[in-house]
């Protein structure tokens, strides 16, 4: 989202850019090196390795430039925000993992409750709205769109 009243705090000549620059330079070099293992077929004037090499040259050069002359970075969020963001990834990762073994309804209900909590609602609001969202999505996909979602094990017909 674009900041409303106050522009986001920025840092000039930031370390982040340098780290990314080094990382990307390594990736560019790696991509270049690895592209030589792609076998060029018989009768092909341009093999499968040429285009990746063509891209890795500017990528490498630009990342070196970024290391030398880093630009602006936004400040990283505070500890509590990082925890929340990590929480989001954990909840969503777990949701992806549980979707099939548990079935859509229980997995979604649990994941949505946690999500709504993460976004700052209390437990009561979380339970209510997650039930609403889960059922609405279930109806939308199963019946309106006719897309089968994973059933609860043992309850499929």
């Amino acid at each position, binding site marked *: 989202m674009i900041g409303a009243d106050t522009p986001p705090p920025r840092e000039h000549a930031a370390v982040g850019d340098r780290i*990314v620059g080094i990382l990307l330079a390594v990736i560019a070099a790696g991509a270049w090196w690895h592209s030589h293992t792609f*076998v060029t077929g018989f009768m092909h004037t341009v093999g499968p390795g040429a*285009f990746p090499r063509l891209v890795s040259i500017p990528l490498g050069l630009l990342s070196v430039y970024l290391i030398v002359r880093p630009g602006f970075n936004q400040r990283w969020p505070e500890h509590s925000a990082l925890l929340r963001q990590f929480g989001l990834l954990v909840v969503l990762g777990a949701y992806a993992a549980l979707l099939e073994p548990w079935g859509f309804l229980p997995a979604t209900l649990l994941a949505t409750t946690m999500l709504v909590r993460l976004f700052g609602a209390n437990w009561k609001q979380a339970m209510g709205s997650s039930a609403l*969202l889960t059922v609405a999505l279930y109806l939308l996909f199963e019946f309106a769109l006719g897309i089968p979602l994973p059933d609860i094990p043992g309850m499929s017909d």
Partner: protein
Amino acid sequence: MDILSSLAHGFTVAIEPQHLFLVLIGCIIGTLIGALPGLGPVNGVALMIPLTFNFGLAPTAALILLVSIYYGCMYGGRISSILLNIPGDEPAMMTTLDGYPMALKGRGGEALGISAVASFVGATIATVGLTLFAPLLVGFAIRFGPAEYFALFLLAFATIGGVTSGSFTKSFIAACIGLLLGTVGIDPVSSVPRYTFGWYEIYSGIDFIVALVGLFAISECLFFLEDTRHGSKPRIQVGSAIPGMKSSLRCGPTIGRGSLIGFISGVLPGAGASLGSFLAYVLEKRWLGRKGDFGKGDPRGVAAPEAGNNAAAGGALIPMLSLGIPGSGTTAVLLAVLLTMNITPGPLLFEQQPDIVWGLVAALFIGNIMLLILNIPLVGLFARVLQAPPWFLMPMVVLVAFVGIYSLSNSAFDLYMMLAFGVLGYIMRKLEFPTVPVVLGLLLGGQMEFNLRRAMAISGGDWSILWSSGISIGIYAFAGILMIAGLVYGLLVNQRGKLR
């Protein structure tokens, strides 16, 4: 007239009941998504893609729905700009400058009315422009060979840099990352797996819809979680939008100028709606000089950028449809949809599938009228969306993204991939790398490489074929000019930042 008969044919396609219904639904959903702070057209359209595929719509219908959402988002973006001072997306940013002060003075309804009319005029002018110029460009592009197309792709990447906020270097790096990611998977020409490292899930390449939704929707949620101060919002009386109709008459010349500027910047590859609204506002301010009350709630300060960004949105469809080169993030997303449905935009599309092109253009005309009708009397209803608590909206967005992606492939792997792209998008945005070039690279990389190889096959391995025709040299020169223009624009924006 050839164009008129094509357009007439388009209207017969567009007024099929299913298509009309989709236009209406698209406009409503689009306005809603656009009105939500933080969700712009790119996120909105990206989010709706999996759903569209699930509906099992034919290509024409799917495209009509998604483009209606796109136009709707451009309309909706102004609502949160004016009422909350929070732009729904980047192009709506300029609207906050005069829109919010107007709302504070109790003229919020009027501002919404003016901006609706300005949006309508801008979008309609752009759609007329699309009708006139796209066939012209197609007539020109029919002579392009693979070398010219390769030059065209370079042009798209050269110009996306300067205008997508911020650093040139970073935009190009982002484009290179996208291009490299685009090579992952089995090479379609030689069947050699590239950068797969034995991971069979990515043998078919990185699905750009998964990448898109991750980069835009998931990273948006991560951004949202940074800040907990979303709770209390100032309640603003919307009032009636009807007085805005009258004041927009007085803004007539402003709207006209804004539309024209916006349209031109929309057509330029890589420029898009942000440039359109920015230039429209700045030039209007300069044009009127001291006569205006800009920054303090001048109605013309609302009319100019809104006309500009909606005109640009329409203009951006021209290079996308006629050349297959998207001019903005959202048109890139639309291109992704077309490619997924095995439709390659370009001159041949106009010849072989006129139903798609002209049906779409006609649907845009109809959609514009619907949007105007929806947005004048019903604007209060849309504004109510802003009162919905974020703890409900954001999980809903995540959930739609998740289930939508899952239902396309039924694979948990795609979901992990989407999360990974979400983290990538978040980190990139924190480091002020634009994410749109990544999508463009991922999307266009395959075509770019294919054209390069075809050109080389024709020349027998002689690289000079790439710059041997007048057309390709012209395209490279144009790319150079636009790059310099982009640099100048970047400097302007930086200066604007300093002035603030």
